[in-house]
């Protein structure tokens, strides 16, 4: 009996040690993570409006992504993607393609949503998708970022099937449904863009008449 236990222990160790060797890097903050969270939270004025402070709240996706430095093991990534897939909501009329001209405008706008006392956005400032901050889209816009992949010729390369249209919509609505901990915001889930606005950006990507696919 004792021998069995000893063997079991040895076997466990043999399996566990290589697993430990491959362990992901330490979570940011190490043993001070909890204290760091408290310190961060207490860094703000106590008379800040509640909705400002709510922007410091983290959902499970944010927390888990931070812990893994945005590079979670595949198993964890799959869980994050699965949970995020269930969040996607569609426009009431079910139409996923809007007006590409509206989408073109939204793709260029990088303002909106700044709060605080120093340099907040004026009330009613349009929130854009700011797609150009990270993606190449229409050829004529040269001031594009490279954090995300080029989306130039989006539907020329991928076609305009229902699947592609739905993919584009879903990806913008909740990027983490496809790649956990991506740098891309979850525009729909976090109410940055409305479902209708997302359909305009989908049109900007997919419509054959859109400058994304024209030049």
């Amino acid at each position, binding site marked *: 009996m004792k021998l069995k236990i000893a063997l079991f222990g040895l076997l466990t160790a043999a399996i566990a040690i290589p697993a430990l060797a491959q362990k992901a890097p330490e979570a940011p903050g190490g043993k*001070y993570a909890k204290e760091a969270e408290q310190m961060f939270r207490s860094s703000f004025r106590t008379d800040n409006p509640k909705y400002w402070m709510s922007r410091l709240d983290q959902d499970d996706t944010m927390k888990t992504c931070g812990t893994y430095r945005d590079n979670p093991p595949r198993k964890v990534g799959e869980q994050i993607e699965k949970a995020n897939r269930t969040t996607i909501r569609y426009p009431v009329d079910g139409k996923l393609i809007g007006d590409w001209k509206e989408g073109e405008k939204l793709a260029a706008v990088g303002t909106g949503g700044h709060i605080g006392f120093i340099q907040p956005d004026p009330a009613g400032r349009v929130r854009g998708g700011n797609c150009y901050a990270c993606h190449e889209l229409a050829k004529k816009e040269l001031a594009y970022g490279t954090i995300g992949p080029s989306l130039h010729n989006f539907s020329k390369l991928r076609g305009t099937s229902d699947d592609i249209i739905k993919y584009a919509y879903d990806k913008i609505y909740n990027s983490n449904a496809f790649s956990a901990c991506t740098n891309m915001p979850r525009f729909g889930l976090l109410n940055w863009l409305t479902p209708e606005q997302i359909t305009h950006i989908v049109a900007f990507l997919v419509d054959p008449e859109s400058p994304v696919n024209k030049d």
Partner: protein
Amino acid sequence: MIQRFIRTLVGMAVATAVIGSVSAQDSKVADELAKYREALADGNPADLLEVKGEGLWAEKRGPKNASLEQCDLGLGPGKLDGAYAQLPKYFKDTNKVMDVESRLVHCMVSLQGFKQEEVTKQWFSRPGKESDIEALVTFIGAKSNGKPINVPATHPEEAKMAKMGEYIFYRRSGPQDFSCSICHGQEGKRIRLQELGNLTTKDGAGFAMKTWPSYRVSQGAVWTMQRRLIDCMRQARWPEPNYLADSIIALETYLQKTATGTVMETPGIKR
């Protein structure tokens, strides 16, 4: 002083001409920006602030009618050469890890008798409203020009602060899922045309940290590191942390630790 001012004016005129000719093509933009920085390097408007800071440092001010010349920024009272480059660090007298700004304010309170609220009211300048802190930090920073950044964070409190800064660096929240790492955690990326440094590496953090405080052309003002980081949080669509908040000092400690060994080139000049 007047000579410096003329140099600055000439530098700004050249810069304006260069900005005017900036092409939208990527590599060209980078080249032009480099040229533009070069043109400005000889006439950085921050030079004016540095001179002002030098005056403020030596001037007897405040309820105690004292200068800041006995202020200990970590190398001993009045020792300024290289002081900026070794901050933030742990100070025994306050039992705190302090950055250059929190230490400076500490000196203004303890040596000159100012009230902290009073002295930090204008912690950054606005058009028509100058900031003593900006001027003093520019002066103190310039005294580290040519010195390597040296924040090994070997004291347990410093090591802890660096770790807490790392935690904040990767922490995601807000309506855009942002963290510092989203834009500053990888190599060779751009936001629009702005090149982004990878602040998790020595090269990236060094390139970023060595030029602060820095004159920002787009803002028409010198920005301190506190100002820089608090504005990053604004851009992440979070509320602004308080001036001198520990979370900002933690981020600074993390970044300076990562940048350690990089030679300072300050005051800098940036977009």
